[in-house]
């Protein structure tokens, strides 16, 4: 084979693992892209900021939805389904949760915001979705979420829906949980 052909071959052989790696690189890229643009309803933890607080915010409906993932036996529901809030103010809402089984179980709630362009304006100071919940048989709890909707929320949005799906992660191995924690610590 002539040297030119070898050069072509070498380039192509290098391109293959690079594209394979690119496939995997799409995973963090996707998360970064979603975080920057806030387009898939994912909400990440944010720090307390004085700048966000505003006395004369506008009124806004805040709705809570809870969903149990398939086979998740716990009772999981918002304490109050609808709140009228005002932008630029911190509020705490709670979700009631009860382990209805006779086994110790671990759970993870995954949030989503609708409409999706409201997600970037919803700031969570703390949320039960940033950690796992472990409940003993029959144990119940009130899970808090402390949040603020910033005043720069697009004017046409009069209602924001915050939904949580709760997953049973009891059988997940430790490395899976570690992976999960890594992802949630944004």
């Amino acid at each position, binding site marked *: 084979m002539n040297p030119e052909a070898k050069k072509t071959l070498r380039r192509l*052989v290098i391109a*293959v693992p690079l594209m394979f790696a690119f*496939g995997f690189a799409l995973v963090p890229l996707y998360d970064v892209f979603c975080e920057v643009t806030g*387009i898939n309803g994912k909400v990440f933890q944010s720090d307390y900021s004085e700048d966000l607080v505003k006395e004369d915010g506008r009124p806004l409906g805040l709705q809570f939805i809870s969903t149990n993932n398939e086979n998740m036996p716990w009772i999981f529901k918002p304490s109050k389904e609808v709140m009228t809030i005002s932008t630029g103010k911190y509020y705490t809402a709670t979700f009631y949760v009860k382990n209805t089984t006779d086994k110790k179980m671990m759970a*993870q709630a*995954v949030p989503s915001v609708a409409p999706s*362009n409201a997600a970037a304006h919803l700031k969570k100071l703390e949320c039960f979705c940033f950690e796992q919940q472990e409940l003993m048989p029959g144990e119940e709890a009130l899970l808090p979420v402390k949040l603020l909707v910033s005043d720069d929320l697009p004017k046409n949005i009069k209602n924001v829906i915050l939904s949580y*799906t709760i997953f049973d992660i009891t059988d997940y191995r430790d490395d899976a949980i570690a*992976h999960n924690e890594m*992802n949630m610590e944004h």
Partner: protein
Amino acid sequence: MSAVIENHHDDHHHGPAKGLTRWLYTTNHKDIGTLYLWFSFAMFLIGGAMAMVIRAELFQPGMQIVEPEFYNQMITLHGLIMIFGGVMPAFVGLANWLVPMMIGAPDMALPRMNNLSFWILPFAFFILLSSLFMEGGAPNFGWTFYAPLSTTYAPPSVTFFIFSVHIMGASSIMGAINVVVTIMNMRAPGVGLMKMPLFVWSWLITAYLLIAVMPVLAGAVTMMLMDIHFGTSFFNAAGGGDPVLFQHIFWFFGHPEVYIMILPAFGIVSHIIETFSRKQLFGYSSMVWAMLSIAILSFVVWAHHMFTVGLPLAAELFFMWATMLIAVPTGVKVFNWIATMFKGSITFETPMLFAIAFVVLFTMGGFSGLMLAITPADFQYHDTYFVVAHFHYVLVPGAIFSIMAAVYYWIPKWCGNMYDERLGKLHFWLSFIGVNVTFFPQHFIGLAGMPRRVPDYALQFADWNMISSVGAFLFGVSQLLFLFIVVKTVMGGKKATDQVWEGARGLEWTVASPAPYHTFTTPPKID
């Protein structure tokens, strides 16, 4: 382009080996091309048999022949086998046979890798098909294997599916690397890039697409493997992953894959229309640029498969416009073929019939594609039989008709005998009628709301489904006629001349018919 016919003085000590090991150990591009073509034919018949099961079940509403679980396995395997076992290996086989002869090269650049890339394919499909006999059955999640259907809810055989996709990917990547190295480095002196036959151009672009996206597919199935067996959560929402991410990665591969299955067809049809119109192609360089534009655009349109997953408005608009933009270079190609035929002295031999049917029916598939590209309309069409009709129109009378046209066009060169023109025409008309009777009614039932991937359906879809099934049986049976014609031609028939077709141009028509085992061991001289 004209060339001096080479002399064959050294043929006597370079003939093919005898017996079965000839095929196992061969590094000859013609042998490997033949292996690829027969393999894809076998897969075409197996995948076709599965299509017959699907259409038999859908012949009437209600459940008659198979269990719904088995039906799901049939649609999954039908798609995977036709794409990865039928269309793609057939094009690789044609590339093996034709690319070296068209550019005046003695063989492919990497003959041993060529042998390997073919011989791992039967194992991939053996693994995939063996999953039918495993506990829990074969993969049943559709050829697009969306997570979590293919991870959390998949049958245990999904691991075998993953490995078979890995092997298919390795085979395609090796084949593509071989094609690129051959085309870039082994052209005879005088065959500049913009003098290459269009089939060679189409395959050069296809090979680059394969090298770019097959590794991404391998990555996607590897992530599935890790989610299933190693406790990661790439696509599992409970662990912080995202199932929509799977669809992004899959279609980042999947959309260029669509063009991998149609670009070589563009090349084939250009040659055939040129030959039987007895005219030069209307615009060679515009054809090359159109293929390049289609290939580049194919990387920025993937999310048009995902309009209903909840993309933001800006993304939906972007992917809608980008998709519609592809109609421009595609239109350039269609008008080019029509302009080539315009005022030509056309004859209608079987390859030309298939090529003309390709232009007409592929354009129809393209138009239904444009309808699907309209985001708000797609919310209605998504996952209905309209989509099924669309992609079968671009794949069956598109890709597969072009492969059949290529076989009729080049088989006299391959085996030295003319095929039976009367039977060839019969095969064409049966296939043409069959394909339209099968897939045209699916537009109607799709628009009326029948979802895809269902073994049973509401009563109002009964009539069109029955017609569609009748068409499918006709199309299926006529492919046995195709098998008969090919075997008959290989066994004997009227001897073909070296040029075979009056209007044929290009280096492959300057060598003897059948093409000697070794061609262009000394490069041809090109004016």
